[in-house]
């Protein structure tokens, strides 16, 4: 019970302090809107193409929302030493880090629904397979959050967290099949695409929104789950090695 009191209060504090702040909420709204608008203008597409754009915009909203928020907040707390306060708490380390990342995961999931709500006004969402879409959104949010944690552990300054995040994020836009099919990438880049978790998440989203998945949904979700676990374990090891050294 006492562990869950700690878990819940860490999550609650982060939600209040970081994720529910008006600038972050507006960022969560504007970001997907800007991406959607940009692709429409660039491609000169009609409303019918929203279904093909939607998975990419959803994935990108989650990726940018979670990695930005978590890498910055954790680096900020490490810098002002308040993260030390958490490390002194008598709760299992894994649970502590799950509590710390849960806020960003929820923020990512909420971000995913901004483009969905916008799309609901422009297209018929009834063909959308929610039982595939929701697990994909959650797993992308988890994997992106743990990627943000990995970034936070790798840097020491807040500005480094942002620049280092972009090092991973921008290539993922092109490599993970969000807007451009992986088949159209040069052969030498394809292995890199399949080494990134977002490729599998985006594939599920394409399948759930317009039935255009390349790999079986179940294997996509399985690989995503494995990536989440791997990134979490790797981040914890790095925190132990670097911050409890």
């Amino acid at each position: 019970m006492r562990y869950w009191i700690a878990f819940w209060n860490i999550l609650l504090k982060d939600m209040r302090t970081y994720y529910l702040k008006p600038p972050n909420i507006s960022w969560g709204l504007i970001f997907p809107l800007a991406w959607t608008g940009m692709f429409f203008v660039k491609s000169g597409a009609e409303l019918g193409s929203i279904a093909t754009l939607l998975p990419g915009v959803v994935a990108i909203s989650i990726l940018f929302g979670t990695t930005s928020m978590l890498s910055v907040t954790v680096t900020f707390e490490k810098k002002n030493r308040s993260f030390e306060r958490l490390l002194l708490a008598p709760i299992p380390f894994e649970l502590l880090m799950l509590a710390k990342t849960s806020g960003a995961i929820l923020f990512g999931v909420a971000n995913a629904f901004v483009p969905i709500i916008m799309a609901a006004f422009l297209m018929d969402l009834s063909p959308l397979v929610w039982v595939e879409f929701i697990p994909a959104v959650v797993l992308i949010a988890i994997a992106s959050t743990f990627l943000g944690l990995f970034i936070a552990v790798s840097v020491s300054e807040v500005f480094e967290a942002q620049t280092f995040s972009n090092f991973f994020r921008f290539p993922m836009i092109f490599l993970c099949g969000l807007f451009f099919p992986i088949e159209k990438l040069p052969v030498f880049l394809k292995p890199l695409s399949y080494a990134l978790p977002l490729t599998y998440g985006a594939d599920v989203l394409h399948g759930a929104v317009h039935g255009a998945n390349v790999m079986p949904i179940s294997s996509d979700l399985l690989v995503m789950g494995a990536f989440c676990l791997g990134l979490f374990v790797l981040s914890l090891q790095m925190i132990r090695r670097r911050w409890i050294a």
Partner: protein
Amino acid sequence: MNQVAHIIEVADLTKQFDDIKAVNSITFGVHTGELFGFLGPNGAGKTTTINMLTGLARPDSGSIRISDIDCTENPRAAQHLVGVVPDESNLYPELTGFDNLCFCASLYGIKKKERESRARELLDMFGLTQAANRRFGGYSKGMKRKLTIAAGIIHKPPILFLDEPTTGIDVASARQLRQLVDDLHRSGTTIFLTTHYIEEAERLCDRIAFIVSGRIIRIDTVENLVQPIRAKHVVQLACTNSILDIQGKLSSSFPELHFALSGNGVIRVESDQPIGVGPLIRFLEDNGTEVLEARRIRPSLEDVFVRITGLEAEAMRKEKEKKGGGQ
């Protein structure tokens, strides 16, 4: 909690950063209910030791037992028993004082009603009730320090680690904090205090360990440390002009006395016998040195520290001034 003779037991503890041994094979024990002081200059290894004892750093070798729990392999195993007040505040600047305390209490699994009432109680005890709903980031240094201590004891830990509690705060706040530390000690809390304020350690601690360059030079009670020099007679003379060139003359004219001259015109005179200041003053004035003040000094822990470690207490004082400290 088990009632053990040594609530903290440390053996051969070592921690190295690159080529520097921050803590070099230290061994000591802290008795239950004791106020144990860790005294040394900056960079002596005080904070590294606290970090290892509280689970924020892993020792390279050696062992740590806290309340009979072996923390060597699992540094976080005894965290429920300890409260930690670091040398710099580690609370959340964007939360209010009240919310900070409630949040810290929640980390120890304390339920809402209890943590709110404990937070109010501590805010009252530390004189921060008026500032309870102000953001912590806007607090003064002294208020921040007090709230950080309050956060360290929110879960009523049997062991409290205080790292330089009065550094960088004003005289009144430092005095108030020392009183609070004394009260906690009297209430039975075991306190591990690091400081580079010698007078603070002398005033508060039951036993003191002198640590220099990662090594413990001496551990003893304040009484035992000071006892050998209690019989010494010390006089300090403040003079107007440069005195460094008369050391030889002084020593040859007063062979029974020991002189230490500093560049700022202060002569420290030590002897096993009572010192007559009249002949000294006359001698100095005959040699063109005007004496502004002569006062008898009671030998203190500072003298013991200088004697044992070879470090000048003045150097430690300068360090605390650099940190913005006051006493």
